[in-house]
């Protein structure tokens, strides 16, 4: 008993000491002056946060864009978790920024906070994925629905409009998944001879996608085509087809193009049609938010895929593949970030 309480005492003392030291330390570096002269706009950037490499590239581009525009970027880390991101939107609103750039994690759930921000006159730019309502300033995204159409059409044509299609789903409930599916379905329902074999949802996980696809392939069905929702699903699908030595591999469609998907496709002579779903779009998001903050009118919707550098990626793929960069680089990131900046992100081999 006594030994224990002595111990606890020492822990508590240690804890208090560390706390005091931290307080003292941090007290020194607290204040920062407000720059005079022209108004510095503040943009709250509510990111997907530290969850995956796509988000990391998106964040890097956003902070570079903010510097270029001379705006103050306040970063909110969604930690890849919709329940954690939700309250952050409201705290961001409480800080009264000039604009909010939101990368929605829970597209549907974010509806409420976005409406509250709009009602307080804060401009909200949705980046890369939409919400359920129409009440926002601007939506910057490749139009997944329409962008998926040419890919699905390419795939259907490659399949000669018949046979089994191996489908690996995304994250159920996720807005991107939903809009993507809409585009895919709008094409496929034209072809009743194409049988969609749904192998399950990969929840944007490569290893789940690979395991699901491997099982589906092992069932003995022959596939004339394959479709994956999300770059992870496509990667897992490709790995499964490669490892099962399916030769020739069926044509594959789906987003989003990474350097790695291109590498796999070229190395294994696979036909892959993919979509640029570029993390670089945050540059457009920040610029749009900056313009909106300044009071300029901005378009309600900016379709990234319409911009010349972001079109669909159809074979041949050689011209997109950059062997000097790592698998994690999304096609197009190198068009915004310099090699040094890419190096800092582990993206240069």
């Amino acid at each position: 008993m006594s030994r224990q309480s002595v111990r606890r005492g020492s822990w508590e003392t240690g804890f208090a000491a560390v706390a005091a030291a931290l307080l003292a330390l941090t007290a020194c570096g607290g204040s920062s002056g407000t720059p005079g002269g022209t108004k510095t706009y503040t943009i709250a950037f509510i990111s997907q946060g530290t969850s995956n490499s796509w988000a990391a590239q998106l964040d890097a581009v956003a902070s570079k864009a903010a510097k270029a525009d001379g705006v103050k970027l306040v970063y909110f880390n969604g930690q890849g978790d919709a329940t954690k991101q939700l309250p952050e939107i409201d705290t961001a609103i409480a800080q009264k920024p000039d604009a909010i750039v939101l990368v929605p994690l829970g597209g549907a759930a974010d509806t409420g906070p976005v409406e509250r921000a709009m009602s307080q006159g804060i401009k909200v730019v949705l980046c890369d994925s939409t919400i359920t309502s129409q009440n926002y300033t601007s939506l910057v995204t490749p139009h997944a629905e329409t962008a998926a159409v040419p890919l699905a059409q390419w795939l259907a044509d490659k399949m000669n409009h018949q046979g089994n299609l191996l489908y690996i789903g995304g994250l159920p409930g996720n807005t991107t998944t939903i809009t993507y599916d809409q585009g895919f379905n709008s094409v496929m329902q034209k072809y009743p001879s194409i049988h969609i074999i749904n192998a399950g949802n990969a929840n944007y996980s490569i290893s789940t996608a690979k395991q699901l696809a491997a099982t589906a392939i092992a069932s003995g069905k022959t596939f004339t085509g394959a479709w994956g929702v999300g770059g992870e699903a496509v990667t897992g699908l490709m790995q499964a087809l490669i490892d099962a030595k399916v030769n020739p591999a069926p044509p594959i469609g789906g987003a989003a193009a990474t350097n790695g998907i291109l590498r796999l496709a070229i190395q294994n002579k696979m036909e892959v049609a993919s979509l640029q779903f570029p993390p670089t779009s945050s540059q457009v998001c920040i610029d749009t938010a900056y313009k909106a903050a300044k009071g300029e009118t901005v378009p309600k919707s900016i379709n990234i895929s319409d911009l010349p550098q972001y079109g669909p990626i159809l074979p041949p793929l050689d011209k997109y593949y950059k062997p000097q960069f790592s698998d994690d680089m999304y096609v197009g990131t190198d068009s915004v970030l310099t090699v040094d900046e890419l190096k800092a992100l582990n993206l240069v081999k």
Partner: protein
Amino acid sequence: MKPLDRTEARSQLSTFAAPPNQGGREPRNVSGSSSPRNPVRTAGVVRLAYESVASTLLRLPPTVRGYGLPIGTSLLVAAVVAVVEPGFYRPANLHVVMQQYAVLGLVTLGQVLVLLVSGIDLSVGAVMNAALITIALMNHYNENLLLVSLVLCILIGAGVGVTNGLLVSLRDVPPFAATLGMTACVQGAILVYTKGIPAGNIPTALRPIALDGIGIVPYSLLICLAIGLVVIVFLSRGSYGRTIYAVGRSAEVARRVGISTTAVRVSAYTLCGVFAALAGIILSAYVGYVDPAIGGTYNLQSIAAAVVGGVSFIGGEGKPAGALIGALFLLTVLNVTTLSSLNPFTQLIVQGVVMLVAVSLFHLIKRGSFA
């Protein structure tokens, strides 16, 4: 005459039918059906069905219950699978199942060791992620470091395990919380180190572990089964196994016969970490691509597999062989539902229900009663 409620009738009947001084029969059959402390008046029919199954199983001799039933149940499951989804038995599919089983089996073996010393390890997924990240980063530029990276993976797994074990045994931290905190630390460390972009390669030299093998049996499965055999033998016959069970059932008694409970606990967590690292390596080899969330579902799956296989949470109860069968059962369910081309959401429901039923049945066989 007032119609009798069915359970009421039963209990009245049995009071007369089985005078207590005759002996021999289990009294719980007599009084079990109308326990006044029961929180709810249960539907008599369900209860009756339950108990008739229970008493049928109970009447079987212990040896049949011990060995026959698991084997019988497995055969039954195998037969059901053959009818529901014959595609399961295609060599190609069996090959895939074996590849995936090697991973789940290994994690489950580790989890069993921890469960046996009345712990739980929720950091196996994080260790698997760490293993993949280590391999990917160290082999980013050249593949000469493959072996070094594998050794490092194992060391990381061992390190996480040792920390878990020390927290649990020296600071009495609940295992659930300790390993949860450890998960946050490991994942956090991965994030800090990679800045969110792992950007490496799984070396091709590693891949045959999971992809190649003898016939349709991949090397990874052989590794898993070899380790499984060692664990089974050491737990049932080895003195280490005795110390594990002793610590799990009564740490105080174990301590008093000179067993270092700290050492036993730490070793169990360490082995679990090492097995998880091995599973991470094998899964990396199987997936062949950098997926930093590779260990995602293995925490809960390994626990479920162990419990379905009869390993209990209270410690000291259950066998690794049972857990391996549990893992096989779980994987079969997952595989069959995937093959079934059911709606993926219906698959979730089926998986949940099958798991609950399997565990209930296990309890039924073991305790012979639901009362």
